[in-house]
């Protein structure tokens, strides 16, 4: 009864605070949409200014599968000028047999430059390869005409490369690989901050003291918070997941129920940690100061980024690591409950630990 009263009050507070609700629900959608577009590299259009190059090489560039390459023809001076003022991403000059290729690159965007350079190099390599094939073919023909020559059998074999994707696909976007842990990180961040600030205000405003002057048990207060902010996490998870799957077209292999389970456990760990740390803060601003201490290291170490040796071990001490691991398992790999059981247990363990510490802090205030 009291648990429901506290949960209901928290939901009422959130309902009245339209701005916070808008932030919680809309801001993550904007962030995810940004991530989707900013990191989308496939299907990008690049302009290459050709000073001189064999026709084969130009058509090779234009027919690139992954990128739209627009080709324009310029004098050397104009070509370099075009790169300089941003009209073209690169300029290229190659001799007839592509034995010498000179590329002028706009390196201000390193990843774009890398991509274009690779496209041009591949095109040149393809021309060289074709030329070699033709040469061998001619050589064979000449030798056939001249039987006196020893029978040399030259065989050029192209390497046969086939790529097989176990998870994701060739045209998978950045969001497919990073979306799942990002959703976990977003939920952790918002629930941590909002629950922490709510509890901080409760302590500072005297309402916690007032609740402690009633027959409410400490466990009921904590359970009320878990229920209230758990409801927030459910709403946020549903909105976020539907958005990334149906609007941004992220692949969703596993069950949404498993995603909800993980996100609720994440929210409970985040809110109990937020309540705990709020006892160390004396203002909302001081609560914000926990972002670089508590949130950012977790985002760096949770598995969102490839880590250099040793640091991935540090990640194992962060609750968010288990969230990211489980969400990737369910959303990207399509694995089931048995594969996320360990993650769920660790998250639940964190939550229980934080709850116990919270109850201890409340006990310092009121003995029962």
């Amino acid at each position: 009864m009291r648990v429901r009263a506290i949960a209901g009050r928290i939901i009422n507070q959130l309902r009245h605070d339209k701005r916070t609700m808008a932030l919680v629900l809309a801001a993550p959608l904007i962030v995810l949409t940004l991530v989707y577009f900013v990191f989308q590299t496939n299907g990008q259009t690049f302009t290459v200014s050709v000073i001189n190059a064999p026709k084969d090489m130009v058509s090779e560039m234009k027919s690139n599968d992954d990128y739209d390459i627009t080709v324009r023809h310029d004098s050397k001076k104009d070509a370099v000028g075009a790169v300089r003022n941003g009209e073209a991403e690169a300029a290229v000059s190659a001799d007839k047999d592509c034995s010498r290729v000179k590329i002028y690159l706009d390196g201000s965007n390193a990843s774009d430059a890398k991509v274009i350079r690779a496209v041009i190099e591949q095109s040149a390599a393809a021309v060289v390869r074709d030329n070699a094939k033709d040469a061998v073919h001619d050589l064979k023909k000449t030798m056939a005409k001249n039987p006196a020559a020893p029978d040399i059998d030259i065989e050029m074999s192209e390497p046969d490369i086939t790529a097989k994707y176990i998870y994701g696909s060739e045209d998978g976007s950045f969001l497919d690989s990073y979306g799942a842990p990002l959703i976990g990180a977003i939920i952790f961040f918002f629930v941590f901050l909002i629950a922490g600030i709510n509890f901080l205000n409760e302590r500072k405003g005297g309402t916690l003291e007032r609740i402690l002057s009633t027959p409410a048990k400490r466990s009921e207060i904590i359970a009320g918070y878990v229920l209230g902010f758990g409801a927030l996490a459910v709403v946020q998870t549903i909105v976020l997941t539907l958005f990334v799957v149906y609007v941004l077209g992220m692949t969703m292999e596993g069950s949404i129920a498993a995603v909800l389970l993980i996100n609720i456990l994440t929210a409970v760990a985040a809110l109990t940690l937020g309540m705990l740390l709020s006892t160390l803060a004396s203002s909302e601003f001081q609560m914000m100061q926990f972002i670089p201490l508590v949130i950012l290291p977790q985002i760096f170490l949770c598995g969102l980024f490839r880590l250099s040796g040793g640091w991935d071990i540090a990640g194992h001490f962060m609750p968010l690591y288990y969230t990211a691991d489980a969400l990737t398992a369910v959303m990207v790999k399509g694995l089931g409950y048995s594969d996320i059981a360990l993650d769920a247990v660790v998250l639940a363990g964190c939550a229980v630990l934080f709850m116990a510490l919270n109850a201890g802090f409340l006990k310092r205030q009121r003995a029962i």
Partner: protein
Amino acid sequence: MKTVELSGVCKAFGKKQILHDVDLGIESGEIFGLLGPSGCGKTTTVKIIAGILSPEKGSVKVLGRSMPDLKIMGRMGYMAQAAALYPSLTAYENLSFFGKIYGLKGSELAERIDHAAGIVGLGDELKEAVSAYSGGMMQRLSLAIALLPDPDVLLLDEPTVGIDPVLRAEIWQELRKLADGGSTILITTHVMDEAVKCGRLAMMREGRVTAEGTPEELINRSGKNNIEEAFIYYGSGEHESQSDSGQNNQSAKA
């Protein structure tokens, strides 16, 4: 049996000793005033009685049971000095929340809210968010919350600050009605014309109870003309230097 009984209560925050050996006894059906200058330990005393602070030493009993006791706390109303409200919620939602925390529900909850809001003169304003309230309205709402459980013991920490004289008179009338009905009321105040309305008073200074008695007794004992002069007499330490004239007068700081 006394309704509220403190004996030998000591409380410190860190190294700072707030209460020294406080003894208090409040009878059932009494309006008991706790007077003293700022920082003398009135609020700490009230919080210890309410069960939200634990004393280092001494015993606190309310209605015969040692505090904190959840059963007894359900029969107590507590109004803190700061309004202690949720500003983003409406006044009604604040009342309803604390009512549910006290275990009220359904029609009983609605009736109690109506009754408590009526006492403090809040009506249509209940639908407004508390953030739009004036200081006086918040104070009234806070008092209404303390009245919600129909308490046997009512602890009011400076309840009438920012409330206009007309409403204050009405609230006092209501408090007297509650006391006549058997409720015990502890009130801290700075307002002298309120102090004289209390059945008995305790004067506090630097964490000690320096005098206790009816307003008339305190005025007579101090040899002053009115309660305000008696307040200054007991609150400034004047009486200590008189009763022990060999001591240095330095202890008489404001």
